[in-house]
């Protein structure tokens, strides 16, 4: 009887060891890369999903011969890990999904300065003023709605209209989501603390449904639970990619409305980076037309440099910039104030 247990567990261990062995062989394809930087290995913490950024990383490895070891995870978890690692950490780069996490890592003094020439092609709007990190792509806040239950003329012009009685119980939002919180921060900067508080309270009173994330609020429209939602623009495009008839559409508010805020994903070089040159090369590459075109075409995001074709299903970047509110990335830094406000109105 004892031997039976022994055998089955040993069998399991063997499978595991074999499996581990297979796992280790993944880098063989890159071995033929140029020998110049063959010994360099970059360590990247990526809060952006593998599905979104892996092709760009592979292309970089192929072009430069620099090996990039990646740790994928949620942006907040990785930001917390970086803070706990502190100066003992071994990461070269942090690529995050949102400005809030980049701001927190930057405030903790963990980023090195980005050389001006690395980020030269990027407009001020997409750069951290302290030069610690740079946006790598943008996504817009939009109004998603059900085309079956909402006529075009019924669409609100401003995010402030949603407190109206005719939207009672028909709107979904995701108050715990970082992008939503960035939007609230933007509203505080553009319209002031009191207006924002009033709006949040009125929305809550109007029966706005709170969901866990952007995916859930779009599904809530599809399920017929609500008719409107406040997500980022690119989730719907993913839904439509897998299912053309997904019953949700989206639209921007009137130009300049804070509901059209542009959120960014961004990257910074860590102060602990041991391969500063290679890390700078990586940032340059992510900001290059090749990588930017990839984000625009494949991930349906907005490029941060000029002269890149935006996805046909999106508005052009010029239009986007015109419709966006006047908010800088630094304005979005004050996450604590927003969280305090959300807590005091009972949304967190």
């Amino acid at each position: 009887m004892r031997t039976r247990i022994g055998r089955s567990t040993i069998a399991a261990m063997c499978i595991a060891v074999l499996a581990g062995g297979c796992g280790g062989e993944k880098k063989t394809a890159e071995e033929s890369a140029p020998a110049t930087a063959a010994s360099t290995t970059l360590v990247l913490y990526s809060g952006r999903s593998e599905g979104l950024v892996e092709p760009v990383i592979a292309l970089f490895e192929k072009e430069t011969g620099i090996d990039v070891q990646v740790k994928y995870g949620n942006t907040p978890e990785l930001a917390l890990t970086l803070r706990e690692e502190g100066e003992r950490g071994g990461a070269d780069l942090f690529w995050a999904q949102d400005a809030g996490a980049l701001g927190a890592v930057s405030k903790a003094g963990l980023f090195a300065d980005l050389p001006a020439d690395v980020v030269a092609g990027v407009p001020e709007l997409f750069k951290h003023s302290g030069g610690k990190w740079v946006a790598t792509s943008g996504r817009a806040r939009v109004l998603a709605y059900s085309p079956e239950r909402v006529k075009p003329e019924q669409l609100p012009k401003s995010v402030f209209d949603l407190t109206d009685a005719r939207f009672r119980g028909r709107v979904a939002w995701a108050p715990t989501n970082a992008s939503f919180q960035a939007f609230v921060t933007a509203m505080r900067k553009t319209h002031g603390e009191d207006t924002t508080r009033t709006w949040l309270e009125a929305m809550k009173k109007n029966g706005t449904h709170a969901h866990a994330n952007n995916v859930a609020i779009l599904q809530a429209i599809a399920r017929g639970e609500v008719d409107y939602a406040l997500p980022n623009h690119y989730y719907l495009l993913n839904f439509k990619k897998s299912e053309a008839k997904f019953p949700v559409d989206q639209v921007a508010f009137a130009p300049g409305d804070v509901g059209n805020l542009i959120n960014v994903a961004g990257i910074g070089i860590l102060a602990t980076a041991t391969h500063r040159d290679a890390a700078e090369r990586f940032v340059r590459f992510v900001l290059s037309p090749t990588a930017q075109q990839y984000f625009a075409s494949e991930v349906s995001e907005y490029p941060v440099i000029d002269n890149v074709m935006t996805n046909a299903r999106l508005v052009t970047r010029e239009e986007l910039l015109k419709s966006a509110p006047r908010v800088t990335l630094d304005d979005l830094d004050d996450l604590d104030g927003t969280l305090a406000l959300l807590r005091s109105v009972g949304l967190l």
Partner: protein
Amino acid sequence: MKRTPPWFLTVPALAVGLAVLVPIGYLAARAFDADPATLRDLVWRARNLELLANTLALASVVIAASTLVALPLAWLTTRTDLPGRFVVTLLSILPLAIPGYVVGYALLGIGAPHGPLSSIFGVGGPRLSGFVGAAVALTIYNFPLVYLHLRTAFASMDPSLTDAARSLGLSPRRVFERVTLPQLVPAYLSSVLLVLLYVLGDFGVVSLMRFETFSYALYLQYIASLDRTYAAWLALMLLAITTTLVVAEFRLLRDLALERTGLGAPPKARPRRLGAWTTPAYAFIGVVALASVALPVWSIVYWMGQRGAWTDANELVRSFAGSLSVSAPAAFLATLLAVPMAFLSRRHASGLTHVLERSAYIGYATPALAFALGWVVVVLRAAPWFYQTAALLVLAYTLHFLAQAIGPVRAGLHVATPRIEEASRSLGLGPLATFRRVTLPILRPGLTAAAILVFLSCLKELPLTIILSPLDFETLALNMYAFTTEAMFAEAAPYALSIVLLSALLTSILFHKVGEER
């Protein structure tokens, strides 16, 4: 009976006890940075009490519902002649293999006019969310824990007791109430504790179901605020509550003495003939399997069918290998460590051995995110070479999930008598040989259950994996989760399905090898 415990039991147990303190020490250190005013706003606020009440209400309902589902299933698969018991056993364990958020998405979608159900029948069903939704999803996810424990207890129970009770004139129902049920209590309490700790710690399911609990607040404090100080306070508060529960369970268990008093191996129980009850039994099993296995699996298949494009096969193989390479060793190690922990507290009862055994539960109750961050801090200072290695991840899994392994082992020990161990010693076998040749075989069902539980938990684990995994490391759960957060459900589906298949495969191999169901 009062012997000094042998070193091969005390050393591993002491090591575990110390290791569990690591994350708690970390939390305490972080908590010191707090500023009193902010502490009042964030931690000592009425809302946290409200959330706590929510959590406890949810936990009680989940425990009650899990018991009502698991007890009949455990009895049917161990004590009756029900045909197809092996399949029923698998179906009763499998829900554990389905990640909680898949169950969540499946239940949310069930009643949708645009979802898997309406795509077959053309109409939607009930819409589950909030308290009810969370309770249903967490029950589906947790009843297998109760099932596995009860099943182990049934399987290691001495049937001569029930036979004696019958021969003394008790009706079958009275025998069940007065003889069988009391013998299930230790195993049952172990499982209740695990369910309780799980519900207290869950944030994935409750956030999808829009039901706010205490750990949801804790998770948000970490994730939304990227804060380590006040989150540590909330985590310590949660730990204070769970420690109370862990101690309470111990008090309840302490005075139970359920060892067999007879000598020799327990005779095999005669299966109960179901007769006319076979059909209702299948109906019950059918309903449970439909909700807990068929529905989530159907949702996954539905995602998969949304688009023809297949995921990169290499990637799938790589994450499959990644998952297996850490989950299997952790399951093995946790089971290995559970034996001394349970054995010590059962056979060498003392204040210290009890504290050591309970410490495993504290490891389980420590929020995974805090648990992982604690190890980051300590390992980088004490042994940087150990950081971001697969071995560290295996260790973290083992320490975090050890409690799941202890329950079934302890339950087995509760019914195995120390007398035969003493007999073996008196016949000249040493403590190690006695343990190997006498005690271990009795623990077999418990060890199997322990390994399965830990393996399935590791397979789905996220926060520890994200934070402590080696670079360039992928698991099925990581990829699956990443795709679902981007609304790429078609891409997520093969990973979700692999998790379920791998779990089913390993569970059946273990049960098959042990040969209990023959």
